C-alpha cells in the first residue's frame, strides 16, 4: 500500500523525505519542497521510471510505485548495507494550469543539492532504487558519477 504521506500531496508539491537532514529547492517535472533552494547551478538527477517488475511483468509506475531511494557514495560500489540519503515520492500532485485541479505526475528528477550531509568530496557516485507499493525494492540503478567541481 502506498505510503499515506505520498498520497496526500496538495498544490503541486512532491513529497521528499530527507533521511539525513533537511534541504530545499525545486527542480524537475514536479516542484519539490523540503527546505531552502540551493543558490546558483544545481545538479539534477534524472531517470526513467521502471515499467516492469524484475520478472518482466508490466508495472504501472503511477499505480505500482511508492517512492525512490537515492543513494550517494564516494565509490560506485553500492551494497545492500547502504542507507538511502533521501526518499522521493514516485508520484507527485501538481496543480493543473488553471489552478483548479490537482494532477498526478510521475517524478523523474531530483535536485541532488537537496540532500543534506553530503560527503565532502568533489566527486561522488549516485544511484537509486525504486520501491513498489508492496515494499519490494528494485536493484540499484547503474551508478552515476557526480562531479561537483
Amino acid at each position, binding site marked *: 500500500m502506498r505510503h499515506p504521506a505520498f498520497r496526500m500531496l496538495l498544490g503541486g508539491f512532491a513529497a521528499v523525505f530527507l533521511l539525513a537532514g533537511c534541504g530545499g529547492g525545486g527542480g524537475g517535472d514536479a516542484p519539490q519542497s523540503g527546505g531552502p533552494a540551493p543558490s546558483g547551478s544545481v545538479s539534477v538527477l534524472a*531517470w526513467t521510471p521502471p515499467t516492469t517488475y524484475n520478472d518482466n511483468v508490466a508495472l504501472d509506475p503511477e499505480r505500482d510505485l511508492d517512492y525512490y531511494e537515492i543513494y550517494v557514495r564516494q565509490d560506485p560500489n553500492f551494497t545492500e548495507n547502504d542507507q538511502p540519503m533521501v526518499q522521493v515520492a514516485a508520484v507527485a500532485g501538481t496543480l493543473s494550469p488553471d489552478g483548479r485541479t490537482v494532477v498526478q505526475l510521475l517524478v523523474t528528477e531530483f535536485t541532488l543539492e537537496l540532500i543534506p550531509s553530503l560527503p565532502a568530496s568533489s566527486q561522488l557516485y549516485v544511484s537509486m532504487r525504486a520501491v513498489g507499493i508492496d515494499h519490494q525494492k528494485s536493484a540499484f540503478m547503474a551508478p552515476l558519477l557526480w562531479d561537483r567541481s
Partner: protein
Amino acid sequence: MKKFASYLLWVGILATLAIPAFAETRTISWDPVTTYTDGTPIEAGKTVSYSAYWTTDPGLGSLHTIGTSLAATSTTFDPDVQGMTRGGTVYFTAKAVLNTGEASALSPAYSWVVPVVTPPVVTLTGVTVSGPSSVNEGGTGTYTATATWSDGTNTSVTPAWSVSPTTYASISSGGVLTASAVTSNQTATVTASYTSGGVTKTATRAVTIVNVPATAPAAPKNIGISGPVSSGATELWQLVWDPVTTYAGDSPLDPGRSVRYTVYWTDDPALTAGSLKLLASSVSANTVDFDPLGYPMVKNQVIYLTAQSVLDTGDQSSLAASIEWVVANAGPAPPAHGQIIKK
C-alpha cells in the same frame, strides 16, 4: 337343505415350538368336520376348509384372523406377531366352510392364557483380544476384542483399551496401538476390559515392540521461509528448517553420520513425486537461499516447499511437511537512463 356343522370341536393347543430364543410359535388344532349339524355325512366331492380366529372377547367379538381357507385342521401362530398380550387371556374360535360356500357357525370359544415369556438371560462369560503379537517401533497395530456369552455366542465388542507400560506404546479407544521408539525389543501388554450386565471381563495380549535398526533419517521439520534476504538484482529468499539429528524412529543418529538436505518446490499440495521440482540438493546447512526468478516461479503463484534429509549412507527420509508460499519475488526493475544534469 341339510344344516351344516354349527361348531367345531377344539382339541386345544397341541404344541409349543420355541424358535429361536426370543421368538415363539404355537399350534392350534381341531377335529375335522365331516358332518352336517343333523349328523349326516358331508357328501363325497364336497370339501371343507377352515378359518381360525382369536379375540380377547369371550363373546367372540372383534375377531383377529389367524388363518383362512385352511385345508388342514391345525395352524400355527406367534402370539407376539398376533399382538396377544403376554399373561392375558385370549379366546380361539374357528368355522368350517364348504366349497359350496356354506359356512358353519363359529365354534365355542377356547380360552388360553398367553404364557409370559422371559427372555433368556445371556451373560458375559469372557473376552478375548486379537491383534499382532509384535509392532515395530514407530508403527501401529490394530487390536480387536471378542466377547463370549453364556449362550455360546461370540460377538465383537469395543472394550476399554489400555497398554502397559506406556513408555513403549499407547493405544487408542479404537484399539490402535502406536509403538514408541525403543532401543531394544520390549514387551508391552494390551488389555481389553469389557463390561456387560454388571459383569466385567478382561483379557490381555502381549505385544513385542520391535526395535527396528535405524536406517532412514527423520524428515526435516518446521520449515519456514523469510525474506527477501537480499533485494538486489537477484532477490533472495531463505528457507530454513530444524536440523535433523535423529532417525525416523526418533533415535539419535549414530556417531559419525552426516545429513544433507534436498529441497523441492511444487505447485501440487499433495507433493506428488512427479510434480516436485528441485530447489537445491546436497545442502549441508539447514537453510538455503533461493531466487524465485531462477526456477522460475511466477509472482503470486502458490507453491509448496518441502525438504528431505539424506544420510551419508544414502538413506533418505520421507518428505517434510510442506509450507505454502505465495511467490512474492519480483520487485520493480530499477530506474533506467539515469543522468545528472547541471542546471
